[in-house]
């Protein structure tokens, strides 16, 4: 199947959906719910006055900082918990309790601790993405096949070499999966967090557009942009999965 043929069904579904939306809005004569064209003109308006890129930039910056902090904390922690049995036994129950708590549930605490500035959403992003990455990294260490550790032991390499050449690369595919999940959750959370009390970001754009005059064209434009950027972020993480040194783990996708 060519690339075009593969894309065709999904493009058809999308077009049908947009067509149905258009028809329903026109048929019901809704004054609040916009047509697809109104959404497009709304988006163009945002691009023209430059606010769209400000909002996108603000959201991406928050995700960038929160996610980076989470990576810096989660990877060493996950490796340590995977490698040292005592660390796993001690900390795993705690993480298993914290992990299922929705990041949204942390919002009151975030406001209490960090106020309503940038620190709150960054904290929420950190909280939301750190746990999946810790869990994936730990599981990655636990699933390293014995034969590889045995071979490393046989060659009598130093601890540093063992980590650099065996443990880290063996876990890397799992780390990348964890990062993909973490970044996905982070992007979900930033929008929710920005709806609380900030003056920038795509979440703010959506809430502000509704509050300031029921601009539902901008609400939907914001939603679609969030979806597209999320898709892009996932695409970037998928690029990591195609690195030659991790491909062995995803062999079934070749």
């Amino acid at each position, binding site marked *: 199947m060519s690339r075009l043929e593969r894309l065709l069904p999904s493009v058809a579904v999308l077009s049908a959906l947009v067509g149905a939306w258009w028809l329903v809005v026109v048929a019901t004569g809704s004054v609040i719910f916009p047509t697809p064209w109104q959404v497009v003109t709304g988006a163009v308006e945002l691009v023209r006055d430059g606010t769209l890129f400000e909002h996108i930039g603000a959201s991406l910056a928050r995700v960038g900082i929160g996610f980076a902090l989470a990576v810096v904390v989660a990877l060493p922690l996950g490796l340590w918990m995977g490698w040292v049995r005592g660390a796993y036994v001690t900390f795993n129950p705690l993480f298993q309790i914290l992990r299922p708590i929705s990041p949204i549930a942390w919002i009151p605490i975030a406001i209490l601790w960090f106020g309503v500035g940038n620190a709150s959403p960054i904290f929420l992003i950190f909280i939301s993405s750190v746990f999946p990455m810790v869990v994936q990294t730990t599981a990655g260490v636990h699933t390293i096949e014995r*034969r*590889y550790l*045995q*071979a*490393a*032991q*046989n*060659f*009598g*390499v*130093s601890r540093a*070499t063992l980590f650099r*050449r*065996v443990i880290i*690369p*063996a876990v*890397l595919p799992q780390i990348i999966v964890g990062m993909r999940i973490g970044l996905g959750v982070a992007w979900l959370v930033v929008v929710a967090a920005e709806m609380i009390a900030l003056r920038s970001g795509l979440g703010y754009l959506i809430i502000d557009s509704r509050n300031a005059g029921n601009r539902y064209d901008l609400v939907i434009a914001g939603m679609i942009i969030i979806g597209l950027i999320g898709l892009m972020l996932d695409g970037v993480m998928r690029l990591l999965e195609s690195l*030659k*040194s*991790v*491909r*062995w*783990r995803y*062999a079934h996708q*070749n």
Partner: protein
Amino acid sequence: MRTKIEVHDVAKAFPAKDGALGVIDGVSFSVADGETVVIVGPSGCGKTTLMAMVAGFVRPDRGRVLTDGVERVGPSPNGILISQQGSVFPWLTVRQNLMFGLNGHPGLDKAGLADHYAAIVGLKGFEAHYPHELSGGMLKRAELARALVVKPEILFMDEPFSALDALMNLRMRNELLRILGEERHTVLLITHDVEEAIHIADRVLVLSPRPARLQASFDVRIPHPRKLTSPEVQELRVAILRELGVDRGD
């Protein structure tokens, strides 16, 4: 000839539901320096456990393993284990795999040495490939080269070619013999394949079923290259198979 490996009355049992399950029960043998000894035994007789003990990965419950007269207390680069499933690191290229065992030796031309041994096993041109881009036979060659590059005195081979098809198996045996002709190593190889044993070995040891004991020993005094269809090979094959409880060899 000097004795390289001495195995003294080693035994190993694993805990089971009803008491301990004996796997190896008092096996003793020795391997001379530069000798190729092949151990054959029925499937599941504990060959792999025996090999793990001799190579130092598992401590025996009883008995001792000596290398050059010194008790072996753990695995070491002077005896590299090559196993059936293989352990070429899939995240490193062939060259990086071959350089792996050379880490911690500063001042060495690691890449040069790696490429030299890649060429010896016939992997020239594949140095930058990843293992998932290689065939099963090429993977075995890479594994063999990774062991050879650290110049181990002993090669421990646990069913090294069993996962290969018959043709590739034969090819790898010839390859191994060629390499052993060029570089001196003491080899301890275990297999269930009697023909493979006769093809390679200076001496064949036969293990009994569980709990495994040493049952018989055959010197193979046929000069290389050995013709597997020759009467003396067939005669030896029948004798070994008889020890394994198979009366008719064909």
